[in-house]
């Protein structure tokens, strides 16, 4: 029996699959994603990040090997699943990417402001993404366990919750518009409910990720930046309090979820 042709936008058409293809489109997509897991181009960025971690660079000609990501200088494994967290030296809650920039600045002498202003995918931002991929990979399989012992950590969680629900922009969207309830979907993309633990490897537990649609490696900072773009908000600054707060909110909510970062995404 000849299969009915289905066009790219033909969601309706998917309901008319021939008898032998009993699996749902959600199952078929899950199969496709599974096929891509082995041989994730994120590995290329992870390798680059590892090289950058160990390489002496910047005006101070130093490596990042004594960078403290929250578990002590140079401790990479386990750091990712406890970020964002409060740091004594900067007196603030930082996420992975802003903390990497702090280390690149204090240890290597690179200019933090310049890096923050550099567009994603260019110059030092490319390196930040590669480093974030390396650090995340070192926690693969571990479960999120962000600390909330410090008052600042709790404050950022509360701010993050407000940011999550803050409606604005010409469409009056908030994060919650897409991620505030169970069972939401955009076309064939399931949207995880980020008010709670959405499950292993989902939502906060899946980024950084390699996006096949543009062949780019995206950290959480770029993921959030793009969410705001889709909501027609002004772009948040790199490492801004709003992005760190909402990351804290998502990360704490994801407590216990297994990290699969760096993952592969559409």
């Amino acid at each position, binding site marked *: 029996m000849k*299969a009915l*042709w*289905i*066009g*790219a*936008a*033909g969601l309706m058409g998917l309901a008319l699959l021939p008898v032998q*293809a009993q*699996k749902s*489109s959600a199952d*078929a*997509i899950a*199969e*496709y*994603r599974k*096929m*891509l897991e082995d041989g994730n181009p994120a590995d290329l960025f992870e390798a680059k990040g590892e090289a950058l971690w160990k390489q002496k660079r910047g005006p101070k000609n130093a490596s990042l090997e004594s960078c403290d990501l929250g578990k002590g200088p140079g401790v990479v494994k386990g750091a990712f699943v406890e970020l964002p967290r409060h740091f004594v030296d900067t007196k603030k809650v930082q996420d992975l990417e802003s903390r990497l920039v702090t280390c690149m600045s204090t240890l290597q002498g690179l200019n933090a402001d310049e890096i923050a202003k550099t567009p994603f995918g260019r110059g030092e931002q490319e390196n930040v993404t590669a480093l974030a991929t390396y650090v995340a990979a070192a926690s693969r399989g571990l479960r999120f366990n962000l600390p909330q012992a410090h008052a600042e950590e709790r404050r950022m969680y509360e701010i993050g919750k407000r940011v999550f629900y803050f409606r604005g922009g010409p469409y009056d969207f908030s994060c919650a518009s897409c991620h505030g309830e169970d069972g939401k*979907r*955009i*076309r*064939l*993309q399931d*949207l*995880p409910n980020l008010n709670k633990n959405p499950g292993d490897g989902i939502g906060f537990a899946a980024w950084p990720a390699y*996006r*096949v*649609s*543009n*062949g780019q490696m995206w950290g959480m900072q770029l993921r959030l930046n*793009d969410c705001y773009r*889709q909501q027609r908000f002004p772009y948040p600054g790199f490492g801004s309090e709003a992005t760190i707060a909402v990351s804290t909110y998502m990360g704490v909510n994801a407590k216990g979820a297994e990290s699969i970062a760096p993952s592969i*995404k*559409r």
Partner: protein
Amino acid sequence: MVARRLVLERCAQVAGLLAAAGLLPSAARAAWPQAAFDAKNLADAVKALGGSAPVESKDVTLTGPDIAENGAVVPVGCACSLPGLKRLALLVEKNPNTLAAVFDVTDALEPNFSTRVKMGQSSNVFAVAMLGDGKVLYAQKEIKVTLGGCGG
């Protein structure tokens, strides 16, 4: 002198055309098969690779997903266990140029390869096996390509 230059240019052009059609004697390393990679359909691509008309066969395997969430990266595999296998190729019927990749099969390798290809739209994908006796066999599978939502 002008005439000589024109003659030399013309010779180069003709040589280029011959090379593109795969008709020049092969050098130590074969030139990249331009004509095959320019072909717009299965029959022309196979012909440009020096093969006879392809015949569908259960002895060739094409593996791939039923639906690819994004056409930029579609995992596909080609395999064939028949003796005398010389080459395996992957083609995407509706791509601007149908041939995606060609693998030379040697005794040192298992006769199966996997890679990822770009698909411009939902299309049939072919695995083609070229045998030493001149037979060309193929398998096909329809892979649907859909864009999905917002990349989350």
